[in-house]
């Protein structure tokens, strides 16, 4: 997928002016946030479970090679195959080889962010294999030829009229004048069309929310049941997952599952949580004959042991997106790649390079809500700061900002001078404001005030108040 992160500022401006997008984003702000808060409040052990979930992942990451070895052993023992892939190209080739061997013409797909990451659909299409997304949101955006804008609600940037248009354009065998005004009709149409695809598919590809070292199982979590039909009906089930998805035991997965749905959709539990282990058994009456796990590195091993390791705890619940004021204002596409919002602002630079994605860790007000709601307690603002430091070290920060920061640092190292200048500055702003509460324009700071107003300083400076209180409360 083409990266448009370098034009984040332009993308964001466009998004803010897009009235349809703004209407769609309104649905995010009311739904997810309230439901998560209620679900968390209803489980007294929620905060303690977050601590344990974090500890499980920290332990697993420190012993990742050992757990992955044991996972592979168990998959093999159950009759499945693990394929190790360093990058997207290796994973795409591996999947293509399996499809070719089975003479697959259509492939159904459960929702997988890793598949987006390696642009699997475009590749399969080029090779003459039809990939069919089966998650309703993914299906809609596949018809519209666009990437997801949210990691758990891929079509959250759309209103239902846009979905109707996409269905009319794609489902040309149906009467053109049919009524597609309401969501239930749209869902019913997608269900009917995709049901045929499920039954006809030769290969089913799903992602994985977890891999279980103890049993060699892969786990998917859905509300629609599309992942289950994807993996149960075709001859082969291919699981595409990244290395860090492994957890030790079924009990460990259960602990993390308790915080996953509550953080994501605010449900007590998602409708379908499915553990898959190997291909169908001799005595089974249905299920796939082949079971493949394509394990992808694609930059994860390079994060291990660095200040970005904590990001590998991420379980892709989307809570940080739902609670982010920047995401809420501009939506997911502005971020320019697969992963948007705070988790994307940290992960995208790690996976595709800070040189192309420098705007992302700066697209934050550091309000800290992302870290406050992250079920895995990932210190997202801190890691965005790490990226900003790296940018500064590499001289990627604009010259004006560098000069201003250099000047500020020089003054800040001289407390007396800092105090004098802060007082003078505050007084100057008050005079300039002439009684207004906020300034729309400030001399020499036109770039900053172009996007926001500057509140006029009131009362005494922090330093003055600190001194007056004797340096303490």
């Amino acid at each position, binding site marked *: 997928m083409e990266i448009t992160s370098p034009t984040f500022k332009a993308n964001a401006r466009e998004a803010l002016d897009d009235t349809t997008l703004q209407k769609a984003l309104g649905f995010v702000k009311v739904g997810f946030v309230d439901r998560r808060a209620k679900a968390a409040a209803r489980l007294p052990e929620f905060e303690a479970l977050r601590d344990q979930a974090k500890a499980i992942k920290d332990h697993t990451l*420190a012993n990742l*090679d050992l757990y992955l070895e044991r996972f592979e052993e168990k998959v093999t023992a159950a009759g499945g195959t693990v394929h190790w892939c360093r990058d997207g190209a290796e994973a795409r080739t591996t999947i293509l080889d399996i499809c070719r061997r089975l003479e697959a013409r259509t492939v159904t797909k459960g929702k997988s962010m890793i598949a987006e990451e390696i642009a699997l659909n475009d590749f399969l299409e080029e090779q003459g294999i039809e990939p069919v997304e089966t998650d309703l949101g993914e299906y809609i955006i596949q018809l519209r030829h666009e990437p997801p804008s949210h990691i758990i609600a891929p079509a959250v940037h759309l209103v239902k009229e846009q979905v109707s248009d996409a269905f009319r354009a794609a489902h040309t065998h149906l009467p053109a004048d049919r009524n597609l005004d309401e969501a239930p009709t749209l869902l019913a149409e997608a269900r009917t069309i995709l049901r045929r695809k499920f039954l006809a598919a030769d290969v089913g590809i799903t992602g994985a929310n977890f891999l279980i070292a103890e049993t060699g199982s892969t786990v998917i979590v859905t509300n629609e049941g599309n992942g289950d039909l994807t993996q149960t009906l075709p001859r082969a089930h291919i699981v595409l997952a990244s290395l860090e998805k492994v957890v030790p*035991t079924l009990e460990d997965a259960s602990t993390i599952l308790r915080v996953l749905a509550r953080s994501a959709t605010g449900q007590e539990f998602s409708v*379908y949580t499915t553990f898959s282990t190997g291909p169908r058994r001799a005595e089974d009456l249905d299920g796939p004959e082949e079971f493949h796990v394509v394990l992808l590195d694609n930059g994860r091993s390079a994060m291990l042991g660095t200040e970005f390791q904590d990001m590998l705890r991420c379980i892709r619940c989307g809570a940080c997106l739902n609670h982010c004021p920047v995401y809420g204002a501009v939506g997911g596409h502005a971020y320019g790649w697969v992963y948007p919002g705070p988790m994307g602002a940290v992960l995208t630079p790690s996976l595709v390079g800070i040189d192309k994605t420098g705007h992302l860790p700066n697209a934050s007000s550091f309000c800290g809500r992302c870290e406050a709601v992250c079920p895995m307690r990932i210190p997202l603002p801190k890691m965005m700061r790490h990226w900003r430091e790296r940018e500064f070290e590499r001289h990627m920060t604009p010259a004006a900002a560098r000069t201003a920061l250099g000047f500020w640092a020089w003054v800040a190292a001289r407390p007396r001078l800092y105090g004098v200048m802060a007082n003078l500055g505050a007084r100057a702003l008050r005079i300039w404001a002439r009684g207004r509460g906020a300034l729309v324009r400030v001399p020499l700071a036109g770039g900053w005030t172009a996007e926001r107003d500057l509140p006029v300083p009131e009362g005494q400076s922090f330093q003055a108040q600190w001194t007056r209180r004797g340096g303490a409360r």
Partner: protein
Amino acid sequence: MNGSRADIFGRLRRANAGAEERRDPAEIDARLAAAKANLVPARGQLAPAARVDLFVAMAEEAAATVARIDAPEAIPGEVIRYLRDQNLPMRIVMAPDPALRAAGLDKEKLLTVREGPSDGTDETSVTGAFAGVAETGTLMLHSGPAGPTTLNFLPDDHIAVLRASQVVASYEEGWARLRATGGAMPRTVNFITGPSRSADIEQTLQMGAHGPRRLHIILIEDL
């Protein structure tokens, strides 16, 4: 891609060489073998009678319907009542489950019963369940000769039969019971909480996305 495997493991080992939480392989194996439960919420530790009530309440909250019956003999009557109330044809595909067979569904004159997996043409399935998990009203089913997975997903209406003695308090207790059966991990273990749904269009919840539109649980009070 053997080169890739070696390369990936090399990188992981180098990155983790000095990690504070690094453990010996023997310790890792011991942790896996112990499969110890982590924190289980109080809600997942209830006594049998209370857990059945919680299971029913949570399942209904997740939009499943529950019928509590006194004995397995009442299963056919309840299935027929459900089909009639939903205005469905008197036709079911049934899991080849000995307990269901014993209930005598095939002896009902009103009812056409077929056994086996589903090919997508069945309106209603009747299956057993391995367990019910009280903390979230979740059914636990697994694949095997008595439980084809397609029955849980293809029909529009899924009727699952569960005994109260199969209701466990927590997921952990469900895993413990599955391990206690002594067999290998089944191909598929399904945790199912209510019927299929999607909120992908304007974040508005719609029932019946790809899986069953309705989930009906017949609970036999055997405690």
